[in-house]
């Protein structure tokens, strides 16, 4: 498949290039909608399509006004800061609890491992609207509805499955004779954990943390029900904007978020290579 052999027939040639064209179109479908946002966000007008000036690449057609609005308008800055305050707290909570549990789950003898695993992964599977409804009813009963702490708690629960999945995956490749060697050399379990195990599984922990972060940073359904106006996050503001009065500032916000996801993706890729190198696998 990779390269066309010189003896390929005409039919094979047509199929080869035809198939690649189809794949190219599908890749275009995947990436174009996201990429189209970026130039549109520099639109000088309040339109959501390319103006004739933009198509002529006339500098008059482009401007930073939507970015200025995004970074100065309190309607956007408040939510941005809320997101920045909520996501790290939720991430920290899910990473700490999730890593401990993943280590526990990777021990050879865990009673009811399958059931525990199913319960810990369930926040990823249960439809968000159901989680949101349940949390809304329950958290209002215990007075957490509309509080910062309530939103952090809910987002941490939603991030847990990602931490569990990535950290258990890393632990599969972890050589447990290393911890026994450390114990044999006189290290306490805590020292062993921080000096031997943690550095080795760190890439998995960080990528789990990134997943948890993006889950919280992106989450809108739960916060929509659980939060009050003072917990309004960036996705919430975008959601209201899309539903009610759509303003092009959304495109600037989207571009900022795309940049953040590119940074996260790059970090993750670097971590993956590092983890493969540490485990002795050749970087592919």
């Amino acid at each position: 498949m990779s390269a066309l052999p010189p003896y390929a027939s005409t039919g094979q040639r047509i199929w080869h290039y035809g198939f690649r064209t189809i794949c190219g179109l599908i890749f275009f479908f995947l990436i174009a909608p996201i990429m189209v946002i970026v130039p549109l966000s520099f639109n000088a007008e309040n339109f959501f399509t390319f103006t004739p000036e933009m198509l002529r690449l006339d500098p008059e057609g482009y401007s930073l006004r939507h970015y200025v609005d995004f970074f100065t308008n309190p309607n956007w800055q408040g939510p941005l800061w809320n997101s920045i305050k909520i996501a790290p707290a939720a991430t920290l909570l899910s990473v700490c609890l999730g890593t401990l549990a993943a280590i526990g789950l990777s021990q050879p003898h865990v009673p009811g491992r399958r059931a525990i695993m199913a319960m810990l992964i369930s926040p990823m599977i249960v439809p968000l609207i159901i989680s949101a409804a349940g949390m809304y009813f329950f958290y209002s009963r215990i007075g957490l509805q509309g509080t910062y702490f309530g939103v952090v708690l809910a987002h941490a629960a939603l991030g847990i499955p990602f931490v569990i999945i990535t950290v258990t995956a890393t632990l599969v490749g972890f050589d447990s004779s290393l911890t026994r060697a450390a114990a044999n050399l006189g290290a306490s379990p805590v020292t062993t954990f921080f000096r031997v195990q943690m550095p080795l599984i760190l890439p998995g922990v960080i990528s789990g943390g990134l997943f948890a972060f993006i889950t919280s940073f992106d989450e809108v359904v739960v916060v929509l029900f659980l939060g009050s106006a003072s917990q309004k996050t960036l996705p919430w503001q975008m959601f209201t904007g899309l539903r009610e009065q759509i303003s092009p500032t959304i495109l600037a916000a989207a571009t900022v978020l795309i940049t953040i996801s590119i940074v996260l993706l790059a970090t993750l890729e670097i971590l993956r290579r590092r983890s493969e190198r540490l485990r002795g696998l050749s970087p592919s």
Partner: protein
Amino acid sequence: MSDQTASGRPESPQSPVAALPGGEVTERDQDGPMLAADGRPLKSSLARALRREKLRALALIAPLLVFIFISFVLPIADMLFRSVQNDIVADTLPRTVVALANDPLEEEGVPSESTFAQFYTDLYIAEEYKEHTRLGSRLNYEMSGISSLFRGTGRAVGRFDTDIYADQFEAADPAFEDPAAWADWMADDDIRAALPLTTDAYDAWAGIAVELDEDNPAEEDPEDIVYTSLYRDLANGAAPPAPFPQVDVSGFESVSIRELFIEEDEDWADPEVWETIRAYSSRYTSGYFLNAADMQTTPEGVELRPENERVYMTLFVRTLWMSLVITFSCILLAYPISFLLATLPARHANLLMILVLLPFWTSLLVRTSAWKVLLQNEGVINDILVWIGIVSDTNRLALINNATGTIIAMTHILLPFMILPLYSVMKTIPPSYMRAARSLGAKDWTAFWRVWFPLSVPGIGAGSILVFIMSIGYYITPEIVGGTRGVFISNRIAYHISTSLNWGLAAALGTILLVVVLALYWVYDRLVGIDNVKLG
């Protein structure tokens, strides 16, 4: 505990032994069992070490388990409970519920005078606490018109002509005018026992005076409900002991509370109203579930609603159908891509993989807004189509606010979830299989269809279930690009939670959706195993 015996050991021989306190094993005695260094039998020593290991593993998991239980599992359980919970009628009209249960409803399905009298007390109290409107809107889900009936009568109930009783009692004995005397009587256990209805009404009234008006009941004149109850007690032949004044009520002018209600609103003579109150007076109800399944209770029993009123079934069917279409389009688009990625050299594949992972990592809101912008009537896609000349400027394609919009946007959003499992399965197919098939004389298509495709089916299965599960619970994207024709059941649930406030129905719909998702989750766990979920 039998599986912890030495017979289970060979799987991991070294760990429990290394964890033993002594760490060494003594020689076998001539006849006795094998002993560990501390003199215990080796068997129990190993079992103890294993138990300790299990406990340590559980101790590591416990904090998270407790956390997930409180922050996630309990809320869901609470929601499930809400779908059958129905306290409002029993809490708001406690006396009426009891009276109705014992009322044969002889007069054409309308309750008797004594039930109406209890209802009068209940409604009077509920009106003071402003709870009758909530009850009215709750019952309005079951029978339209009840809400306004309760609201209207609630306003009138304080002005009912029952004040004649207070006047007649006060005329018969001036002691009735003294609030302090009332307080004394109502502190006397013998009087309380002799006048059950009066005691009940007085206590409720005193509660209102203290809680709502912050008055001292011993300084306020009791309201009409107390005198009305007293009249009924005495008319029933109650004989309260001294110091309660002896009053003969046989000569009193009386008024029918039943007539007062029917005069206020003739709907109180409608048997259906009372049937509804009676049907929902139990603390648990299947009513929400019946509603969610488009069924209703009629005098003949449970039956489906008329065809044009089956909202929820239509919505469930649409959700499932559109999820199927989305899953299918995802397979169609993901298969060629995954095939290409799995067969290209790793260097190129990793580069192209970024094109898959970038959308995966991009915010859902960003992707949804992108589609909202692209699909609009004046959006980029329609502009391009008009420019090419496929579509004339006057009849641009309606791509948004309908099912098409939802399907296009959701296929794009869920596509990475299909590509990733498919790719990870395809990567494990050795390329030599295809070469072997070809060298045995198979044409390209035959080699693919008979060798490659069957091996990739597990990936299709895993990806399809994942995409299907995610898609039937989607809320944000259908809400924004779906209009009215392209929304899912989730949107209806959200509507009932935040707009119509019919939480019970929302919970019932949510429960049904949850059952479907959990069933699929179970299948997924059987087929793929949850620990095999790949992320990026």
